[in-house]
């Protein structure tokens, strides 16, 4: 049944957050290296937030990966 092959929504969210995390971490590292931000922007925040997104993304991708639980559907 097609229903048994459905991937949970959290799996897609995991991949998106992982990609976003990598991009934001990379951009944050560039900012930190160049010190090219205004006085109200904390130059480390991109690195911290990027790392957080990567951690959440990896957790979701791992926990909701295909085949881990057969018929999760859109959970």
């Amino acid at each position, binding site marked *: 049944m097609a229903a048994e092959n459905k991937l949970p929504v959290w799996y897609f969210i995991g991949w998106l*957050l992982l*990609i*976003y995390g990598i991009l*934001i971490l990379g*951009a944050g590292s560039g*900012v930190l290296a160049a010190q090219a931000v205004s006085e*109200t922007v904390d130059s480390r925040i991109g690195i911290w937030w990027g790392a957080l997104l990567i951690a959440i993304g990896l957790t979701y991708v791992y926990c909701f990966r295909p085949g881990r639980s057969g018929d999760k559907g*859109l*959970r």
Partner: protein
Amino acid sequence: MILGLYLMQADLGRLIHLTWVDAAIIAIYFIAVLGIGFYVKEQTQTGDDFFFAGREMTAWVAGLGFLAANLSSLELMGWAAASYQYGILAAHWYWIGAIPAMLFLGLVMMPFYYISKTHSVPGYLKLRFGESTRTLSAITFAVMTVLMSGVNLYSMALVMKILLGWDIHLSIWVSSLTVAAYVALGGLRSAIFNEVLQFILIWLGVLLIPIMGLRETGGWSGLKERIATNMGSTDYTHLWSTLGSFQGNPMGIHWTGIVFGLGWVISFGYWTTDFLVVQRVLTAKDLRSAQLAPIIGAGFKMLVPVIVILPGLLGLALLPQKLMGEAAAVASNGHSYNEVLPLMLARYLGPGLLGLGITALIAGFMAGMAGNVTAFSTVWTYDIHRALFRPNASDAHYVRVGRWCTILGVLASIGTAYLVMQFLSIMDYVQALFSFFVAPLFGTVLLGMLWKRATPAGGFWGLLLGTLASIGMWIWGRLDPGALSIIALSPHAAGMAENMYRALWSWLVCVSVTIAISLCNAPVPEKQLEGLVYGCTAIPSAAAVPLLQRPVFWAIVVSIAFVLLNVVFW
């Protein structure tokens, strides 16, 4: 990719400047939502799949979809602006203006929606009060939903033009056609799937503002001190203590208007009878999930002020420039209240994070528009097309009509957006029109569910006269400015109070007329009310369900948190 390049090249905006990383993040978001639409299309074969997501959602997914459909970029920016203007009073729209109603929906009303197996709120009215009430409700809902969607679409495109320099036509067409594509492909299943994604992105995109802002002010007490210094008053950080009189608070409203107008009629009307949000809960896989979904939604709704109200208050405390109304901002080339959230985004977020923040605003808009379009498509297909034109067509026919309705709904929204662009005053009229139907509809559905003596004639005339009363009061207010003091019962009432009291009066008219006419008619036999009305419906007992899985347990937890929040910020 083309979109990403455009976003960078068009970055001549006045407020926010994007880098290639920001543009890539926005472009990836568009690819992701369309990809989900294509993926879900394979699983969308029947009418149940398209209109009700197969009725297989867990409480979490239905609950987050329920909440996300209510969010929009305007909701985020509008209420951040309101909190800059009125202070923490704006949080009433998230707490007393939402939480009790959402809990009531889960515990009291959902069993009737779910057990009756209705496909929509107008569908429930057909079962309870007959065809005429359903038709009145369905047509007004369908038309108003599309018009509201168009107004939101125009406003979003205008904001993107002001903030980022994006072409207004491109914003309208790209964002709305993206919504049309993923909803037409996968129906409600695709919309909910994306709404959960959008909900997460909204939080992750905006949450840094309160974190960084509170760090800068030295916490909540530092924030209060700065606002008191800047505004010369402590009124902006109290939720209830300033509501003893109309003159005592920045909003010009009395606590009776907040409690009875907002907390009772408007909030209950919206959260329990607006099909846009109720449709998400009807997708739940069983009754317990359907009851839990609004309760989960209520838990998260209580937290939304963190990303909406707090940024507005932080703007009040930290922004060097004074924000003003739209007209004054245009005249003086300054910044309007509506720009407070983007200003705070620009204040704290660097490359990459800025793209995520803008993506959050776009995601909010899309979640709201998809909510409008799916609700419109379902009501039009089942409550207008099937009821009035093709009652016995095949399931495949209705799915086809639903897909076309999705596309036509989006095109009608685009048409409305262009109409608003030409005649700006239409926006006020459309928003007023929508408000006419919420309060009376709540009266009709509430009596329908809880009072078995209510009759079809009572339901129809109550709904019609309640709506006409609301329209009449609104016209009166436009023709005679003195009407406000009579409708709101005080010469000191401000514009915001009018909506509250108008809703209250129109609800009372609806309920009074329904009761009076019903008592003059013969009662409906109880046999016909099974599954529709309290006292005639067998509701499954939760006695065998473990405590931690019972909706009532979580409703109590949410209620305690709700009371504590109101006391803490009193």
